[in-house]
């Protein structure tokens, strides 16, 4: 798993994650993301999922942590580039609305 941070505007950060985001890699990704959100962190964070090969519910849980931290301080989190299977995982956890993901779980893959 590789995580890179780009500034996409004033106070905005774009995080790209490449590889697997699962129980083995989430601890490291979490460490890096929390460091980014620390003092003088961005007011808006976008996480690009398009290069995540596979993910599990630990990735969803980590996104919930990010959402909580950011929204508690009036900042924004946006998840982009989600494939159908990734969207379905959020839907399965009944968290698609919390992240603004519109996906019908009855859709086939």
């Amino acid at each position, binding site marked *: 798993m590789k995580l890179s941070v780009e500034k996409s505007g004033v106070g905005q950060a774009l995080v790209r994650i490449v590889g697997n985001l699962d129980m083995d890699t*989430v*601890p490291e990704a979490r460490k890096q993301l929390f460091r980014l959100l620390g003092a003088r962190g961005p007011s808006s964070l976008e996480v690009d999922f398009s290069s995540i090969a596979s993910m599990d519910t*630990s990735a*969803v849980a980590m996104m919930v942590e990010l959402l909580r931290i950011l929204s508690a301080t009036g900042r924004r989190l946006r998840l982009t580039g989600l494939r159908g299977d990734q969207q379905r995982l959020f*839907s399965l*956890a009944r968290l698609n609305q919390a992240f603004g993901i519109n996906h019908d*779980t009855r859709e086939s893959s």
Partner: protein
Amino acid sequence: MAADDIIEIRGLTSFYGRRKVLHDIRLGIPRNGVTVIMGRSGCGKTTLLRHLIGLKQTSRGQLFVDGQDFGAFGEDALKRYRRRIGVLFQSGALFNSMTLRENISVPLGVHTKLADETIRIMALIKLHLVGLSGFDNYMPSQLSGGMRKRAGLARALAMDPEILFVDEPSSGLDPITAAGLDRLLVELKETLGMTIIVVTHELESAFLIADQLAVLDEGRVLALGSPDEIRASTDPKVVQFLRREADQEETDHSSYLEGLLRAG
């Protein structure tokens, strides 16, 4: 073995003491599908499940997981396999001294380096999945049998298993909760690509969720196929099972009486 079988059972014969309970079982478990093993009580279906999850040693016959001989698994391979599977036992098998959230967190704490907060959220997600939101701080003893069963499923799902084994999912559940559980199993297959092996004698549930059905009778695979193929079976025992017909009276009354009257 079909190319997409995740597990292959080849000639499995099993005993309890000298009593043979499984006879030369041959069965492939397709990846990303729901296989339902059904049959009457005592037909050997739970014993078969115990072999598949490594709780009973295979003395005759072989099991293959991803083409690898399960019997030859060393400690590391077994550990990896256990991490890939989730098991819902009939009883739910929860730790009574722990809350539901703690029960679900145990495997995550043991097998991963996830932060406590990530684990806490994962546990809450799994409880929500099985319809137990808000019960995270309950002890198993504070729940009904059906709720314990659902909590057991949440724990079985803790590690996002690739293969989920479920023993009698509907037992002790009201029809509405049972239907919800069936729907969840199908959703897990479709969403996570899980391979699910269900042992049950609940016909309605079996036909609803199965991609493949295996009917066991007296330790033998009586019929194997899709739900439509099983429905079309003309095997008298399969027909009897599907029609829920009672056995013909076969008791030998004279030996029965003899046994009763024999001096202890």
